[in-house]
């Protein structure tokens, strides 16, 4: 079946088997490998994207469900001020090791900070509890969130 959708601001289409997830559509049909596939079961958040502005695990969304809708992936983030601050903070804080979880965290943290510019530690932990990282133990990821949040508050757009 043909799915037509907006991805990172551009009109795209893909010819997929009806059972194809949005994650597989993005990765294997559109060549957007930034979203990762650590579990394909909604447990790890490595596949996080926005669907019509809502944060979703793209492995849990059927490609067909995204038809006619707007998808924003980690590849579409690079120019945004908020995401740029999050990305820089992840590198500086040492929040990246193997990096397989990182695109999903960057998306989830960007989403968190756009809803809550000054999150408490508890709300950061809760907001990111659906994103697994096997390498860092999360300490430096939490540091990165605080670093990015502080900088964004100090220099409002």
């Amino acid at each position, binding site marked *: 079946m043909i799915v037509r959708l907006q991805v990172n601001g551009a009109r795209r289409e893909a010819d997929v088997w009806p059972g194809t997830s949005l994650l597989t559509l993005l990765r*294997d049909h559109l060549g957007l490998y930034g979203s990762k596939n650590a579990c394909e079961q909604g447990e790890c958040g490595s596949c996080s994207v926005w669907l019509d502005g809502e944060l979703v695990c793209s492995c849990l969304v059927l490609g067909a469900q995204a038809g006619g809708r707007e998808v924003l992936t980690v590849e579409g983030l690079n120019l945004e001020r908020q995401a740029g601050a999050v990305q820089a903070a992840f*590198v500086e804080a040492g929040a990246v090791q193997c990096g*397989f979880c990182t695109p999903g965290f960057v998306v989830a943290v960007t989403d968190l900070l756009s809803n809550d510019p000054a999150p408490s530690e508890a709300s*950061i932990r809760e907001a990111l509890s659906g994103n697994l990282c*096997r390498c860092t133990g999360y300490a430096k990821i939490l540091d990165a969130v605080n670093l990015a949040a502080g900088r964004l508050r100090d220099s409002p757009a």
Partner: protein
Amino acid sequence: MTAIRPRAGIGGVGESAPRVDGLPKVKGEFEYASDLRREGMLWGETLRSPHPSARIRSIDVSQAAVRPGVRAVLVAADVPGRPRFGLDVKDQPVLAAEVVRYAGEPVAVVAADSQEAARQAIRAIAVDYEVLQPLTDMEAALHPDAPRVHPGGNVVRDVRILHGDPDAAAEVWVEGYYETGMQDQAPLGPEAGLAVPAVDGGVDLHVATQWLHADHEQIAPCLGLPEEKVRLHLSGVGGAFGAREDVSMQIHACLLALRTGRPVKMAYSRPESFSGHVHRHPSRIWMRHGARRDGTLVVVHARLLIDGGAYTSTSPAVIGNATTFAAGPYDVPNASLHGTAVFTNNPPCGAMRGFGAVQACFAYEAQMDRLAAALYMDPLALRLKNAMRPGTVMPTGQVVGGSAPVRKLIQGCAAMPLPPEEAAGGRDPIRLPGGAGNTSRGEGLARGAGYAVGFKNLAYSEGFDDSSQAWVRLSRDGQGAMAEVKTAAVEVGQGLDTIVAQIVRSELGVERVVQLPPDTAIGSAGSSSASRQTMMTGGAVQLACQAVRAELEARAGHHEVPDLIEFLDSPIEAVRTFHHRPTRALDGTGQGEPHVAFAFGAARAVVEVDRDLGLVRVVQLAVAQDVGRALNPQSVLGQIEGGSAQGLGFALMEEIDLAGGLVRNASFTDYLLPTTLDMPPVVSLLVEEPEPGMPFGAKGVGEPSTVVVPAAVVAALRAATGRALSRAPVKPDDLVGLRTFPGYRPPP
């Protein structure tokens, strides 16, 4: 213009230089093995045995082969070269021929136009199995009448260490029996790679691995190809932790590519990944400690059993570690230590962070607490009294050389600030055991603290020469000086590439360092395991840089110049190999000099337990670690924190649930990894006492926290509940007394 001038601030050794791969990773641009693709590429899939033990009567691939899009279906008879592979002992069939020895063992592989077509073809293969009774209990495996998993019997390796007078008399005795579960490394990046057939009849394999040359040495003979026709290239690695030490899809993808003449990609799903790599050995450990009334350790008796599963993998080295470490980082004058790794029809076990040291530490540290209680002594005082130091003779006869700041670690760990007490009422539920699920309201809450001390060997042991080779080239162009480096060492996420760049910057004084992609065109770098790459590949890079610098200085002669770049009219290059000092295998009574060096660690865990519901909140972990010298402090802390998380998982939640040899929780829904809600803050202390013979005095830093944190967490749970808790992971049932674990029973 970049100069050649060693100076601070250029991202050299000792600075927290940012990761060289940080930017592409945060942008989603870093290419992992599962992201590989080629024009005209096929997808490979694997058919695995559903039975832990069975004879294969026949395999019928005819239905699968005629399905649309299917390009090849291969079984054991299609393997052109050596039918078996393995890291050391080649006992693992590329594809099972007559028997299967574990559930998940590969039986056939398929290449098809799409992953879906390949998956459907797999389901169309008909295998006629004669199902056999599996051997799944590690003690039963030792019974003379047990079915034999391999013709040579069920013992993979038996290690006996006799030290001093094992019959020495003591005034106080404690004994205990301990068990640990099967942990999964669960790197987030699944096993994946892409095999591309080459015009010379060979194959190029792009793969996520820990050791390119060990893969290479196993793959080429199975393909029936000379080594030079098989070339391995490192792809992006999404974590490893031991899971990529053994070959998984490598040979299969190459076979399919050579058969079809097309590039073939294989990428495991998460459930398949649980079958696709070895796990941490489950263990059963009996220990008896004898001491004088003043707390001086007199003798340790230990019997250790680990379940190696169906194939050898690294079990011999893991039981070697567990047994040589069984007396702990203490001065123990007399000991009898006996360790055995056995074959069963459980999934194969092998390397995982901590490699045998984790299981031993869980047992010997529980014993130290038990002994302290029996002596009415403070547990830290008991440890301080007996702590190993340089010059201590270990049970193997090896004298501890190098740095061994065990006392400093214990004192430093204890001195780190404790988390404040919190009233149970009025808390955000996220700060209660059970967390946001709001299952506990704080009644029956008890806090406890526990300590553990442990150690881990660095680099490979028992006579192994795991050297590393590096090539360095210094040149100049329009932008100034530039150093290029090439090694075959694997960045698995630990930060090696950044450390290499730091070493080059410090040794050569250039800022611009270009690292060439690792492959098998250069000599082996050894494995990215055993906390060894910073020392071994770091050492090789340092030697090569020093050779380049010597040549540059020779060119300069006695000329006093501000910048040596003037003498770089032609590039200078050097290749060097770094070897650690030789070690000696154990003899018949377990005497030798098995280990190169050690890294020690001490941990304190503070926990809160809801004693009615058996729920746990770890409040804080404090880790003091012996790091030699921190080449990149931020990265060292990251290793300690990440290693602590894996230790916490091992203590509280992570276990492969086996029933009759079948894995029942092969998903992240059912196999639980610590999340942001499970991990407490980790406070760390780096103790820096340089290790002689290692570059800049650095020690490997990846493993000690994983070794000590499980024992500390469970000690804290014992303190909070007063229960014996002799099995990890500790489950809610254990904490409320619904599951009482058998106390002491005689060893086999």
